[in-house]
């Protein structure tokens, strides 16, 4: 009887493992980005930048040409000083187009420990260098 129980457990093991893997995976939206070059060092949660939200409102060219964001995650060093001076995120997040920099908790929403990279869903898994 005990043997049968063990076998049942063994049989269910892959199911449990797969379920755990599936539930632990990042299920963020395609194109979601974690920015944590400096956030956690400075005592803040990482920033989660969501392309899907922003592209409804702006074409790619606005950030990736006009505002000079490199098209490579983390390649543009963005600091709160620059943002406060109206550069990068600060070009919109100035209280006129979008919320101001005082609303720390609206951008710094990431889980501690996340690394800077595109972390969106399972199809955002091409190269490792994004």
């Amino acid at each position, binding site marked *: 009887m005990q043997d049968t129980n063990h076998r049942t457990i063994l049989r269910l093991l892959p199911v449990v493992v797969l379920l755990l893997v599936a539930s632990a995976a990042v*299920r*963020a939206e395609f194109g979601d980005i974690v920015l944590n070059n400096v956030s956690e060092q400075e005592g803040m949660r990482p920033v989660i930048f969501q392309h899907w939200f922003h592209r409804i*409102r702006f*074409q790619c*060219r606005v950030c990736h040409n006009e505002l000079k964001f490199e*098209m490579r995650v983390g390649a543009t060093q963005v600091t709160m000083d620059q943002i406060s001076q109206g550069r990068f995120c600060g070009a919109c997040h100035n209280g006129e187009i979008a919320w101001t920099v005082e609303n720390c908790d609206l951008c710094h929403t990431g889980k501690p420990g996340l690394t800077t990279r595109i972390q969106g869903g399972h*199809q*955002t898994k*091409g190269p490792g*260098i994004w």
Partner: protein
Amino acid sequence: MWFAMDIKKTRRVSKSVGIALLTGMFGVQLAHAGKWLPLNKDGLHDRRSPGLELLQSPQDALGSLPTDTAGNKVNWSRAMDERLIKPRGALAGDKKVQILDLNIVMTDTAGHPNVLFPHKVHTQWLDCANCHESLFKSKTGATPVTMGSILRGEHCGVCHGAVAFPLTECRRCHLLPQEG
């Protein structure tokens, strides 16, 4: 008898593997293919983050847009063409964006269907300078693009697989039959 036992065992094993696969697929399905998860379940946002409940949910933002089978599950180009979204082309003012209606056909595809690159849909989102001259030389064929480079996140792979439709969608680019 041993033969019968073995078959029974094999059946059991394949049954459990089958169940595992199905469950896994179901889990992955739930995890990824599902329309849009709330932010507090996406694995990136910290549930304890005080600002979280103020942010727009993907379901709210994307739910009414034309659907797609990959990426954000949104057909962004259709959404823009149908003016369901009107993303600005500049931070301020009425700067006219430059749209180029020019198709490029890439034929060096190792036997796969040729690639059709439409400038139009790309210039609806991007400036010429986003691709030229750094990612792509303006002269057709002058930039050696390979699936390897794309998979490494160069050339088309700077966007496709990151924010534009993913690299699983071969036929969206490789769509022209080879001649001959």
